[in-house]
């Protein structure tokens, strides 16, 4: 893993065309190009200003509850054999890291004079975060959601409705996230003058991966200060679950240049690694173009995109974001996966060691640690990015353990 430092210099990536190495880009219809260019310009214009930073910081702190703690999980550490810290994004308002990005983009949209936000959601976490951000900033919200996800994530649908967001069911395709993204892109082409598409992860055409990563980078910045304060040194490894990769990139952001900090990215293994039973795009996919970018994606021999499958709705997307792809390709980041059954066991372990019910997504990282203890040594300090709480998955989890 001897790579030159500059290779990973975050600030330099993506390039102007939105590329992280060979991944990324802007594979969209001409209709969207002016909007994306406008967005990129506005992001570059507003984001660095102290006015924006202050407003964003205030929202993150007072509305969102930042900084989130870095918790030394003593009891869980015992089951792993190294010192494990949890970066508590579950404590962010709404219960996951998603609000970091939603608040940032909603603020940007407001600065740009947009009056409406549209987005898609699978677990409902991002949709809920967008609904909150919309309300807090006085923007209308419409959310596209696959009909299957609407059924699976009933409680988050209720939450979003209560906040007055319009929920538009997506019946095309498999009725899951990938189809909802397509529909939201379509909707955007017809209303982009008034409407911002609040992309939920580090995916989609440039500049979305860049913008989302920027808004999520607060995780890593806090994490670095906190671990230095607690341990006086950098962690040996950071581990995060992900599909698009926003929580992982957020957590990794301040450490990408520090080659000694191992980075782990855990994707949804689903039932098993058979063709149609998984969401593990790094295991089963190959580079391809989906939703505006060149990424690692599940597809058949002709390039038709395949639906992913995992019990964790938030990981149920066939593609990995371009930056995550790049980190993997360059060897900077190790990837792993966890199967649904392992994930449920991991939920149990976290409940019983620390009294915390993790989101099924988050439990993928937990499961990986439990199943790969040999990769983490006794004197090591590991940070697990605890991306969300399991309230949204309560039904599924309890049905798994207690039946009914």
């Amino acid at each position: 893993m001897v790579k030159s430092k500059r290779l990973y210099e975050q600030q330099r990536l993506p390039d102007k065309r939105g590329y992280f190495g060979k991944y990324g880009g802007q594979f969209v219809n001409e209709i969207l190009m002016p909007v994306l260019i406008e967005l990129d310009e506005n992001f570059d214009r507003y984001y660095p200003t102290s006015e924006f930073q202050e407003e964003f910081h205030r929202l993150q702190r007072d509305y969102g509850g930042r900084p989130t703690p870095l918790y030394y999980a003593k009891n869980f550490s015992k089951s792993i054999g190294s010192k494990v810290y949890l970066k508590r994004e579950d404590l962010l308002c709404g219960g996951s890291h998603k609000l970091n990005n939603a608040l940032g983009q909603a603020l940007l949209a407001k600065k740009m004079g947009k009056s409406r936000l549209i987005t898609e959601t699978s677990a409902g976490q991002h949709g809920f975060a967008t609904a909150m951000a919309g309300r807090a900033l006085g923007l209308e919200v419409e959310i596209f959601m696959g009909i299957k996800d609407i059924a699976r994530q009933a409680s988050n649908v209720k939450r979003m409705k209560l906040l007055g967001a319009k929920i538009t069911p997506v019946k095309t395709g498999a009725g899951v996230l990938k189809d909802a993204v397509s529909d939201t892109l379509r909707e955007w082409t017809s209303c982009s003058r008034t409407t911002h598409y609040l992309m939920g992860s580090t995916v989609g055409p440039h500049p979305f991966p860049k913008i989302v990563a920027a808004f999520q980078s607060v995780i890593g910045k806090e994490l670095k200060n906190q671990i230095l304060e607690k341990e006086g040194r950098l962690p040996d490894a950071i581990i995060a679950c992900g599909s698009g990769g926003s929580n992982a990139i957020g957590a990794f952001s301040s450490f990408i240049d520090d080659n000694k900090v191992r980075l782990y990215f855990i994707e949804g293994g689903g039932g098993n690694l058979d063709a149609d039973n998984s969401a593990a795009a790094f295991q089963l996919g190959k580079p391809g173009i989906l939703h505006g970018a060149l990424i690692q994606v599940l597809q058949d021999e002709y390039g038709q995109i395949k639906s992913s499958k995992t019990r964790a709705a938030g990981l149920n997307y066939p593609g990995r974001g371009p930056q995550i792809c790049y980190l993997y390709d360059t060897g900077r980041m190790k990837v792993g996966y966890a199967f649904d059954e392992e994930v449920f066991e991991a939920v149990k372990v976290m409940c019983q060691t620390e009294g915390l019910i993790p989101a099924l997504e988050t439990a993928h990282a937990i499961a990986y640690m439990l199943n790969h203890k040999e990769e983490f040594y006794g004197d090591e300090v590991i940070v697990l990015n605890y991306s969300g709480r399991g309230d949204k998955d309560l039904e599924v989890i309890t049905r798994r353990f207690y039946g009914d």
Partner: protein
Amino acid sequence: MEIKEKFRELSEEKEGAYMAHIYYGDPNEEFSLSQIEILVKHGADFIEFGIPFSDPTADGAIFQAACERALRNGITPPKCIQGIKKLRENLDIPIIVTTYYNIPYIAGVKAFLSEIKEAGAQGIIVPDVSLEEANPLLDAGREVGIHVIFQVTPLTTEDRLRRIAAAASGFLYVVNVEGVTGARETLADSTLKLVNRVRKHSDIPIMAGFGISKKEHAAAVVSAGADGVITGSALGEIYQKNLENPEETLPKIARFARQIKQGCIKGYIRRLNAQNISYEEV
């Protein structure tokens, strides 16, 4: 027939061009082949031959459903290319392939363009390839001899328009985006504006698409300066009402094609009229 030749022929005939867009294999290959035959017989000057993709993000509900059905019924890119070959047995007008970028990307862009060229296509539209990402496609197109058709919209900036016009070959596909041009502006007004903007940079033919489903639309757009029109989901809408026996809808499809083509002709005449150029009513 080459694209340029077709446009020359049409301008000699004093007609606007009509391109009909279908997704091949929906609901099955036989129907697609008969449908194309009927379309051509009743007025289509170009065929936009869609190779179904799993995630057609630039298409509306009708064509999404079309892609889904076709894929579910087993269509593949190789079968589509076979389809083009079959069509070429009795068809002379230009065939423009439409598909999303992952299909040529996975096949290898140059290999894919060679194959469709060989099968008999003249151009390709890849709606999810922006000018920024078009180089591999342009390079291969030039090498293989396939026109890469670009889209422009009323929102496209002057600078982009210039660069797109420079890169374009075959024709430009004008997308009249709903909701973007403002409610009061008519289809004709916005087309006129865009045509005028394009003309500053290029003489390339202009085809207007998206949302054209009536003779009047076609006439208005052509009279405003477009060289032709494209209809897409309006066709799909017709046969999707009878998917059990789609052949039964062919007479309706024929009537639809005739209507649109008539609009193209009327529009052309109206334009000439407005320009005070003498013409003979057809």
